[in-house]
């Protein structure tokens, strides 16, 4: 794995919904490069025909009876939210005034 560029780090930060300042971008570029150099050891392992292990225990999903159970009251669910309006979570605008 060649070292990451600053542009690649900034692209990753966008995908990860982070914002990094200039110093952070550079430090992240160096740190990720050093870490990924260790990850590259994995490439040497012969994994032909080996099933990927997604979980440590066999996952047989258990259905439950379809019965109504109590859930969090709306007021309690909203109590930890930073911005609330009319019984709902409020977020900044998603569509601009022109409808885009």
């Amino acid at each position, binding site marked *: 794995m060649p070292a990451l560029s600053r542009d690649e*780090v900034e692209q990753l930060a966008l995908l990860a919904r982070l914002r990094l300042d200039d110093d952070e971008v550079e430090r992240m570029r160096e740190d990720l490069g050093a870490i990924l150099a*260790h*990850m590259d050891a994995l490439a040497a392992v012969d994994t032909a025909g*080996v099933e990927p292990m997604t979980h*440590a*225990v066999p996952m047989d999903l258990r259905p439950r009876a379809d019965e109504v159970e109590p859930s969090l009251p709306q007021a309690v669910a909203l109590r930890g939210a930073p911005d609330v309006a009319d019984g709902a979570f409020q977020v900044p*605008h998603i569509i601009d005034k022109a409808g885009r």
Partner: protein
Amino acid sequence: MADDPEIVWASAAAQARAVRAGEVTARALVDAYLARIAAHDGAIGAYLHVDADGARARADELDAARDRGEPLGPLAGVPVALKDVLVTAGLPTTASSKILAGWIPPYDGTAVARLKAAGAIVLGKTSCDEFAMGSANEHAAAGPVKNPWDVTRVPGGSSGGSAAATAAALCGASLGTDTGGSIRQPAAFCGVVGLKPTYGRVSRYGVIAYASSLDQVGPITRTVEDAALITEVIAGLDPRDATSIDAPAPALTRALGERVRGLRVGLPAEYFAGELDPEVRAAVDGAVELLRDAGAETVELSLPHTRYAMPAYYVIAPAEASSNLARYDGVRFGARAGGRGAGLLEMYRATRAAGFGAEAKRRIMLGTFALRSGYYDAYYKKAQQVRTLIARDFAEAFARCDVIASPVAPGPAWPIGAMASPVDEYLADVFTLACNLAGLPGMSVPCGFTRAGLPLGVQLIGKALDEATLIRAGRAIERGAAPALAERRPRP
């Protein structure tokens, strides 16, 4: 402190017995610990939040119940500390992150609820690495926790606050979580017992997720008996966690009395090679010798994929973390940064930039990289295939032995600030990661001290669902090591 009642250093099991017998009140125990926290936690920083009023009120209820002749639970009156990734109704829960500052959960996680139902009293929430990501408790919003044996050193991580509080008798026992060693390594660094149960043994409902296929809740305690008792209480099927295992509750306290004669103890060559601190080596050899003295046999074996555990773990765990931590977006809970004017995407980015610390950001970025289209097969899928090979290594080893013994970490607790880079810190996890990748139970048991007086532990790894053998072997080591370790207490 000369004024402290001796019972604050006793085991949780002994404390519960004393409360049930009426030899001490739950209130007296709680008050003794609150006094110790006030006197000593300034130097250690184990607690993020102490619920003095709640703990006193609960203690009074328990004492009143006892006076009325009502039956009390197996942990009656035991004051416990909870790692701050465990969700607690009405008590602030931050996972040591600024992004959850001020959040008060509306419910208790299952392990917490079961502990309370057994009579334990919650003293407070303990510091940890942010979202349980770290090996030294240095990645915590409130700053590092100090090791009670030497306050210039780290307590280990990520459950450093729980381990430090247990070692310094600032609680009767505690809960931690372990994703890649976060119970076992701080337990070893602080000279206490830490048990990571089999993946799925304890419900993860109400545990703030780091890496969901690896996370597991477990006890950090002063004795092996306490680890057995608390695991029995918190283990078991939970309809709220689809990964919790439907198996009979483990009879761990019964295993305490079972001898180790004939037990086959595997010694994996890969865990005793390379840059192992000679004092660690000597202490682990000593613990193995204690098992032999008690009638166990040793078996030399190999876990050939051990060296790939670090790269596999640091692909899989950050990948899962990057997904799990996507929920901290400033909408439903926690802090929000940025005004309304800039739009949703900018609010997300500002909130997460301000709320997450450096290590959390690093792992989110690493995980995002590993899951990115075009790299998924080379990193994430490859790491999961290697995970299969690591699990197979253990399966082959357990055909020849009943339990594996190894060091917990390559050295003792290091000085605060000593890790030069993230990679150095990741490499220090080398002996604990494979256990999580394979989903096996693992335990750290105190087995000695360095010449400088720092505690050392031995790691025991068992077959899936065979915590009982860990308890059995751990108790034998504890019994054998007692003459050398007894009466040594940290003096923060």
